[in-house]
């Protein structure tokens, strides 16, 4: 997939390369009064059309976040489901403003002039799944374990690197067929199942008793799934800082449910909360410079929510995916994850 993206992007970038100026794309969004955002057409939990044909899922909420921040209305996100290579072509060719579809940010991709990698919304990477009965809480305790992994994939190379570096002994069952591999794991033939964390999460559901399996916190390869926009300083800043607002809201305990009450009673709130929502706040000052609605931070939180809210809504414990956010790398840094909220001041 990486080769595909870079070649497609390079090709299309060469077709349609336009000099990156600050602002015109954001101006275009405001002029059209809609933000065209591309997602995967059928990716359960991340983007799937609901019964009314409207895309729902973790990734689509970041499209709605951008629309709420820029246009003040999350429903003005024109979310379109489109294949992977086509979505890259479409962005480069100015057919869409951004994409939120689990794209891994890599150096060569970001070096392409037609795409801007803005904010990582999901830290994916290769991880391990074990039965809870094993009583293991870290991959470093896996000495002597048997690992099920896809035959001939980079997964095996990553495992070899990671365990080799830590001097951990292990045995590998490399099975090419996915159902066979999963079955081997669920039936106890292997102790550990290795794959991308998002794949682990959905694969776990194929078990008869998903709740008896847990995903270890170690992620041994970096797959930062990142929002992509057209290169445009103003748009990039708007999307990046809208995402930071969602992270800051998590730290400050602001959610879509309590944000209205908090804003009505701003004086009694901590200074950091005031900096997000007050009339003369840092956020309001940013809005003036970027050309966003003055209350953009409020709109993002009230219409989309804080980051953990979005996560819980689509992938969390109450959903069929049943992921515990605090177990993943997507928890805040303070909670042992990798999500780091930049200061808004």
């Amino acid at each position, binding site marked *: *997939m990486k*080769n*595909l993206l870079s*070649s*497609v992007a*390079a*090709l299309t970038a*060469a*077709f349609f390369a336009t000099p990156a100026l600050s602002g015109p794309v954001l101006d275009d969004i405001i002029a059209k009064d809609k933000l065209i955002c591309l997602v995967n057409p059928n990716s359960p939990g991340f983007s799937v059309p609901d019964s009314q044909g409207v895309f729902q899922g973790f990734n689509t909420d970041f499209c709605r976040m951008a629309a709420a921040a820029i246009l003040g209305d999350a429903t003005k996100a024109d979310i379109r489901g489109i294949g992977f*290579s086509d979505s890259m072509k479409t962005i480069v060719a100015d057919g869409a403003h951004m994409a939120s579809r689990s794209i891994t940010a890599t150096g060569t991709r970001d070096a392409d002039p037609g795409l801007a990698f803005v904010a990582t919304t999901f830290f994916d990477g290769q991880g391990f799944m074990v039965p809870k009965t094993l009583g293991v809480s870290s991959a470093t305790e896996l000495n002597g374990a048997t690992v099920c992994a*896809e*035959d*001939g*994939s980079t997964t095996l190379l990553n495992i070899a690197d990671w365990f080799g570096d830590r001097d951990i002994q292990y045995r590998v069952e490399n099975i*090419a*067929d996915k*159902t*066979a591999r999963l*079955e*081997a794991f669920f*039936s*106890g*033939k292997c102790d550990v199942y290795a794959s991308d964390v998002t794949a682990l999460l959905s694969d776990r559901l194929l078990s008869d008793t998903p709740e008896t399996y847990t995903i270890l916190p170690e992620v041994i390869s970096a797959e930062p799934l990142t929002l992509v926009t057209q290169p445009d300083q103003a748009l990039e800043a708007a999307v990046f800082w809208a995402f930071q607002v969602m992270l800051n809201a998590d730290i400050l305990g602001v959610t879509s449910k309590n944000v209205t009450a908090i804003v009505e009673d701003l004086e009694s709130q901590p200074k950091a909360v005031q900096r997000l929502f007050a009339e003369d706040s840092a956020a309001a000052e940013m809005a003036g410079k970027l050309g966003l609605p003055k209350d953009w931070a409020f709109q993002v939180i009230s219409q989309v929510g804080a980051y953990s809210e979005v996560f819980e809504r689509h992938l969390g414990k109450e959903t069929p995916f049943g992921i515990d956010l605090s177990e993943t790398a997507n928890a805040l840094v303070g909670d042992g994850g990798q999500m780091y909220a930049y200061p808004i001041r």
Partner: protein
Amino acid sequence: MIPPSPPPPAEKRLHLSDIAAVGGLALVLALAVFNVLANMEAAGVSPGFGFLVREAGFDVSSSLIPYAPSDSYARVILVGLANTVFLAAVCLVLATVIGVVFGLVSVGPSPIGRALALAYVEVFRNLPKLLVLLILFVLAVNGLPHVREAISVGPFHLSNRSVNFPVVVSNQRMWFAVAAAVVGLGIGFLWRARHKLADRRSGAAETAAINLLPIALPLLAILVFQVPVTVSVPELKGFDFQGGGRLSLQFVVIAATLGIYHGAQIAEVVRGGLLAIPKGQTEAAKALGLTPWQSIRLIVLPQVIRIVIPPMNNQYVNLVKNTSIAIAVGYSDLMSVSGTIINQSFKPLEMMLITMGLYLALCLGLTTTFNRFHRRLTRRETR
């Protein structure tokens, strides 16, 4: 066949329009090629087939020949081609068996059987093959039992993961048996050629003996050279069957889909062929004192085969082309492999030329074989 009529006479004039048409076409093609080259150069991709020797780097779901991701693109194309040919061969046999059975039933003595055969043909005539494939896939995954509760008939096992069956384990001495079979076939061939030359009819016993040679000789070789015949039988060990042969569920579902889908069409062809034989012929055969079996073998079958060969050829070519829908459920056939390569290497033009060329060669090869067969049959008739 109605002889082709001469085409409508055209005005004879200077072939200016001919030159213009061909020139125009050439111009469009040249423009397209120019654009392709310009676009590829702009993307930093150089045209050509050099990429075929580069490392493929991706894995396939199943392979008949040894393959690892570190092998070249050329090799993975070969893997895809082998998978397509294997799939096509299996589907061909399956569709023919299903088609002939239902074709016979549809003209058979049982009205219930006739109704069933007609309903079968009608249903699959009116459904897209992709949908049949997807429905069968859903049914197979959900409906078939878990591997530990596999449906077992003797050493054959069917589960929602795979079909497992016993295979003979190959060893060095096996070649004796193979050689013996080849010798047996060779003798039969030479014998027939000699007889054809002499134009002499042979006795039934003699023919039977010659026909049995390719089976008898290897058996003899196995006894004489003490070839160890070990059969690997699939056994449920741990979590899956170990040993024996294995066909993935994907393969089984695609084969079943194309077998059923084309079986319906072949049943129509067979039915048409059978109905085309006038009833008087079998009655005449009966009057001549031939048994029903003799009348079928000597009177009906030769005619039916001659009638159905052209439409069967058409069916088989379509079947080979339709194996490409395997891409939808992730079986690594030629189409799916070439799709992956296009995405990885960004060589759509080169890859599509290769893929279409290979499919064309497969279909042409099949048609040529069939035409030769047809010619031989019709020649025998006129002799």
